[in-house]
């Protein structure tokens, strides 16, 4: 499913552009590149990419500006490349509308998985309620039914809401604020500890070993990610 898309790579470092062009090209994608913000914005209009890979540290403008500007005219999925020093910018980028992030230095498998999750979400028809199956965990959003190893799991209303959002964006990171806004409402977006408590509860019920979760992964300082089953992660 992940072949034949146009990927725009925005990074000012030639070695990064070169290795991404090679790797993504080998995976069957058409790769176009830009080395600064101005070029990137032109390319978004001209090439109509299916996904944008954007470095936050650009020479001419902040990557955050670029995200805001792209979002003002296009819903194209954006995956941010962040350096270690961009901890804060990373969360801002996601809240501004970026779809995901990969921290530099990153492995190609990781980046491919992010691209796949972003595309999957972008091309998922509106109103479609996916069923989610990963290992022995099954979530049926239509019937509101969750089971592990065939055993039904009872969830509270809020727990189910939380899980529903994770499932709808399976494979993608969701920030604390995004989850809080969707599940608790805009007035509660800063109450991160609510979220932590409910995530802890969900893990107790869904995970085999809650101390080493394999479904609901923590993105420290950012949010949570529902891990896709291995067959959907690998290329």
């Amino acid at each position, binding site marked *: 499913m992940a072949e034949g898309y146009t990927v725009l790579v925005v990074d000012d470092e030639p070695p990064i552009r070169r290795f991404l062009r090679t790797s993504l090209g080998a995976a069957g994608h058409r790769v176009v590149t830009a080395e600064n913000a101005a070029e990137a914005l032109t390319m978004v209009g001209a090439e109509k990419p299916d996904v944008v890979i954007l470095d936050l540290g650009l020479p001419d403008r902040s990557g955050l500006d670029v995200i805001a500007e792209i979002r003002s005219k296009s819903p194209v999925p954006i995956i941010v490349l962040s350096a270690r020093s961009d901890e804060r910018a990373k969360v801002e980028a996601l809240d501004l509308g970026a779809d995901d992030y990969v921290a530099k*230095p990153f492995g190609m498998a990781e980046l491919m998985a992010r691209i796949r999750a972003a595309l999957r979400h972008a091309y998922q028809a509106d109103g479609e309620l996916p069923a989610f199956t990963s290992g022995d965990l099954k979530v049926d959003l239509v019937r509101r039914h969750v089971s592990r190893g065939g055993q039904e799991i009872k969830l509270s209303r809020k727990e189910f809401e939380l899980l529903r959002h994770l499932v709808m964006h399976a494979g993608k990171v969701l920030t604390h604020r995004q989850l809080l806004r969707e599940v608790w409402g805009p007035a509660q977006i800063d109450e991160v500890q609510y979220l*932590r*408590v*409910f995530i*802890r509860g969900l893990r107790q019920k869904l995970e085999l070993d809650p101390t*080493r979760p394999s479904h609901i992964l*923590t993105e*420290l*300082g950012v949010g949570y990610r529902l891990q896709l089953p291995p067959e959907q992660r690998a290329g």
Partner: protein
Amino acid sequence: MAEPQARPTAEAVPGTTEDGHHWAAFFLGIASERGSAPRPLPYLGSAAAVGLALGCGLLIERFVGLQSVLLVFLMAILVSAIAWGLLPSLFACVLSVLAFNFFLLPPVYTFTIADTDNAVALFFFFIVAVIVSNLTAATRSQIVVARARTRTTAALYAFSRKVAGIGTLDDLLWATVHQVSSMLNVHTVLLLPETQESSAALALAAGYPPEDRLAAADVDAARWCWQHNDAAGNGSDTVSGGDWFFLPLRTGSGPVGVIGIERDRSEAPMHADERRLLDALADQAAVAIERISLARGLAEARVLGETERLRGALLTSISHDLRTPLASILGAASSLRSYADRYTPEQREELLSTLQDEAERLNRFVGNLLDMTRLESGAIELRLDLVDVAEIVGAALERARNVLAFHRVEIDVASDLPMLRLDPLLFEQVLFNLLDNAAKYAPPGSRIDVHARRDGEGVAIAVLDEGAGIPRGDLKRIFEKFYRVHAQDRQRAGTGLGLAICRGFVEAQGGRIDAQNRRDRSGAVLTIRMPVAETAVIGNVLAANG
């Protein structure tokens, strides 16, 4: 050397201010009679002594006769010479002659003398009395001077002993101005150069009573004194326009500062003894100031040496820890490129995984260097948040998965732990470093335990390994930068930064970290103790209502 120093006080030097007398007064003997206006007390005393002698004289004259009465008056004169010195005793002589003449010599109640014998006797009595007065007063003043000198010497000795024990410049300056001020009964200041050069400007370093500024004329005098290494100002013959007299603080290697005392312009020039005392105090202060600057120079040299050592360790660390993975990466990449077709798929896989592992190692090392730099430059910005310990432990284990590939990891996180207020990213880095460290020092196949439990008022998170443990003497030192427990196997030796970063990060978040050896088997336990935030309770209440 660095004994705790009490602030020097007046009581510290015996006799400084007792019974209101001042050293100068004792020291100068008759100076107080010479210099200032005559005080009435000695003369009243002398008059009283003469009056007493007159009373006795009248009694003796009535029952015995006139012959021995003059000796009674002589006693009064002696008493006032011993008690009050020359002038009061001369006053007593005159009073005695007049009183004897008026009350005792016939015709009484007149100043005329009828008998020539009596006139001659009275005349010689007067001569003898004056001579006795002089001799007695001279002896007295010698005794007073000797006693004052003894006390001065004792005070100077006590001062020198005290300054020898003072370790900081501030304390020394304060002790000096206080001592000069109380011994000479003057206002005192100390000026030191702002830098080491002889052309440097002088700055007020101490004053007793405290002074903020000097008049321009006094500043000029102080500067002249400093530049010419000679006395200047009011009371000397150079730059004498101001109120202060300045003396250089000299040592064998030149002046180290300037001491100033304030003098009344109308006052007589400084007495030689006063000046000698000031010189003695200035010399002692100068020697002590030089001693302290030398000690400080030595300490600075030591710090510089330590910095050099650290820089050396950093270079070693960088050259080893950057180069080793780079060598593997370059080696593996170039082999793959040049001989790709000769390798079996397994060999190729081996080289590729070397490439990846070594690049990851390099990444960790660079991360450590960055963390250390952030810590040292104080650029750590905490983003505190209430977090679930289990969650952070999970995240750290996830990230350390490759590092821990050859160890069994057991986790035991108590289920009733409160939320902790900490910076999740920093804390995860701490746990990662501890896991990385355990993996490095414990043999492959051994077990690593992660415990999180309540610990009194806080939470204790421990990482236990089954390695060789830590030599007793190294338990504290392993948290020092670039310190490594001596590893036989160089391959496993770390950067020497990991645990230093752990301590820095943990302490920045209000926690503590320590290292112990396991009691039940060989191996190390590294324990982080974090306090529990008060607001953590909210989270637990919410959980109950979920």
